[in-house]
């Protein structure tokens, strides 16, 4: 049995259990959390290097052979995702250590954070559709706790939305699994890939595919199903918003990419639907972001808008398009986490997320403002920075497939992102702070915090900015990685062979 694939799941679980032994001891919990995340990151980078150079790994749980037992598969796409998860996890661990109130930590914030990371890693690694459902449930139960921890009024109100929509998505996902099991008789994704292609009743297959699409669509917040996101992501603490904004919707996108390339190859009906949904997600998300005056709500709508880019890549379904989608996914996880951490810093400095109450950051903290500018420019995609390259691929793919509506939607969404970020920049950074001096003096000043705490607050911002700068300037490597992911997605034969073919113990 190949234990190396399970460790990305087991390590966070062990960290969470270890943290339980330090219940109520805040300082030790912070250290365990940060060092643990660092260890998981190190391990995941090693696993990534191993899979990237040596080909994909599989593991059959309990040595039950492939279509009967639960399979874990680490292909390049999976290991890229778990590596990004652990980078974001490390940044959020560090940021949480300095920004989460001790009352929240006392009620088990850190164990739940690591259980969430465990669920994410599991969802990325599993090769079994029902097991994916189980990981999704672990993710949502952990996210429910993070969402409501603290029990502030606004948190609870938005949690109603969030909890109900996620439970509904789970039920729809489960219904889809039931029908899929009824028509194909298997749950192993590689096995499904072969069996679903042989089913003659394509109508039933399309209905199942649509149920999966709705289930994952609610989780990844695509066009008609995104309303819960902007009404809930602005209430939890910034560190929690960072991990939600960076990773939770991306699990839905990952599942969509996986299921719609491996199991349901889109026919003309499905690809038209995907195109329409992608274009509408881009446009409505952009419009939503335009009219907000709360910085976090603005970014919540930008999350929705940018999900559209990845959906566009899936909808166009060419090599170039999927390369673009994979690249955008890599870029988006890092940058979205970073932007929410950035807003967390702004909140710590000025005590507000509302644009009319913010301003003057550039004059007060010029060095910090430069780093933040890099983050925001990456999000927009100013040329050498990370957001630019995936868009290049997506535009190229849109021209190749002659989907001109998509080109229009892509340009519109990119342009509105620019407008929104420009607004954010001028409101938070350039405009003089509109609040009266006596109000500002009452706020605890950022410079009054101990040097230690300031360093801890800024480290995750710098860390993630460095990663996104690498994605931008080392784009050649990321393109190579993304095109390998796209090849894997378009031609799953290696995946199927690795899962169903020879026993991994005796190659």
């Amino acid at each position: 049995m190949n234990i190396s694939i399970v460790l990305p799941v087991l390590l966070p679980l062990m960290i969470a259990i270890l943290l339980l032994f330090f219940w109520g001891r805040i300082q030790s919990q912070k250290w365990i959390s940060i060092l643990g995340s660092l260890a998981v990151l190190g391990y995941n980078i090693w696993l990534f290097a191993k899979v990237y150079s040596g080909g994909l790994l599989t593991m059959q749980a309990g040595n039950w052979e492939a279509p009967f037992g639960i399979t874990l598969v680490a292909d390049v796409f999976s290991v890229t995702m778990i590596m990004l998860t652990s980078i974001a996890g490390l940044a959020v661990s560090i940021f949480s250590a300095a920004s989460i109130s001790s009352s929240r930590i006392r009620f088990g914030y850190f164990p739940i954070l690591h259980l969430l990371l465990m669920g994410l890693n599991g969802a990325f690694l599993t090769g079994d559709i029902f097991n994916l459902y189980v990981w999704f449930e672990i993710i949502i139960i952990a996210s429910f706790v993070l969402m409501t921890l603290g029990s502030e009024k606004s948190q609870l109100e938005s949690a109603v939305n969030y909890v109900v929509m996620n439970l509904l998505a789970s039920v729809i996902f489960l219904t889809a699994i039931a029908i899929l099991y009824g028509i194909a008789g298997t749950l192993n994704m590689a096995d499904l890939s072969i069996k679903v292609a042989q089913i003659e009743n394509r109508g039933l297959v399309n209905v199942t595919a649509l149920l999966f699409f709705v289930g994952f669509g609610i989780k990844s917040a695509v066009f008609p199903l995104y309303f819960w996101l902007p009404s809930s992501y602005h209430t939890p603490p910034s560190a929690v918003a960072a991990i939600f904004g960076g990773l939770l919707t991306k699990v839905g996108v990952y599942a969509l990419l996986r299921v719609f390339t491996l199991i349901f190859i889109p026919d003309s009906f499905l690809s038209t639907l995907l195109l329409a949904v992608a274009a509408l997600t881009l446009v409505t998300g952009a419009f939503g972001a335009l009219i907000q005056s709360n910085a976090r709500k603005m970014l919540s709508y930008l999350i929705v808008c940018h999900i559209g880019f990845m959906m566009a890549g899936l909808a166009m379904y060419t090599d170039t398009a999927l390369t673009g989608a994979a690249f955008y996914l890599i870029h988006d996880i890092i940058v979205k986490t970073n932007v929410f951490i950035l807003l967390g810093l702004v909140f710590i400095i000025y005590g507000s997320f509302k644009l009319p109450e913010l301003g003057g950051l550039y004059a007060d903290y010029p060095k910090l403002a430069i780093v933040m500018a890099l983050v925001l420019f990456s999000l927009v995609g100013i040329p050498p920075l990370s957001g630019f390259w995936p868009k290049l691929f997506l535009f190229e793919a849109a021209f190749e497939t002659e989907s001109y509506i998509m080109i229009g939607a892509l340009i519109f969404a990119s342009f509105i992102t620019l407008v929104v970020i420009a607004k954010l920049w001028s409101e938070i950074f350039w405009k003089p702070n509109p609040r009266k001096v006596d109000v500002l003096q009452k706020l605890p000043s950022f410079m009054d915090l101990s040097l230690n705490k300031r360093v801890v607050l800024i480290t995750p911002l710098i860390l993630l900015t460095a990663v996104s700068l690498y994605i931008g300037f080392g784009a050649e490597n990321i393109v190579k990685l993304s095109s390998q992911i796209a090849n894997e997605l378009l031609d799953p034969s290696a995946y199927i062979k690795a899962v169903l073919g020879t026993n991994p113990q005796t190659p």
Partner: protein
Amino acid sequence: MELLLAIVIGILYAAGIYMMLRRSLVKLIIGLILLGNGANMLIFLLGRISKGSPPIIPESSSVFIEAYADPIPQALILTAIVISFGLQAFAIVLMKRVYHVVGTDDLDKINNMEETL
């Protein structure tokens, strides 16, 4: 039997969605529970129900000779029941908490539109 189950599942789904569309928090939870039960029954139905043929290989042979009941749907349902038990317990506690903090169970009055300029 299949027909009866299909009708029951249809009723469970319809009732669940109807309850979720009501404005009361409690009915929302009841709706979710009904939907979850409907999904579990659906797995059971689509796993082909059969009677009196346990998936046990008789001692005299080494492989299955006759058709046997598929044990997987039951394993799936058990897992799904356990998971939905946990989630529903959480949701019920959350609703109670919301009722205490907000002071109403009318969903239309629970909306955090605090964003007014």
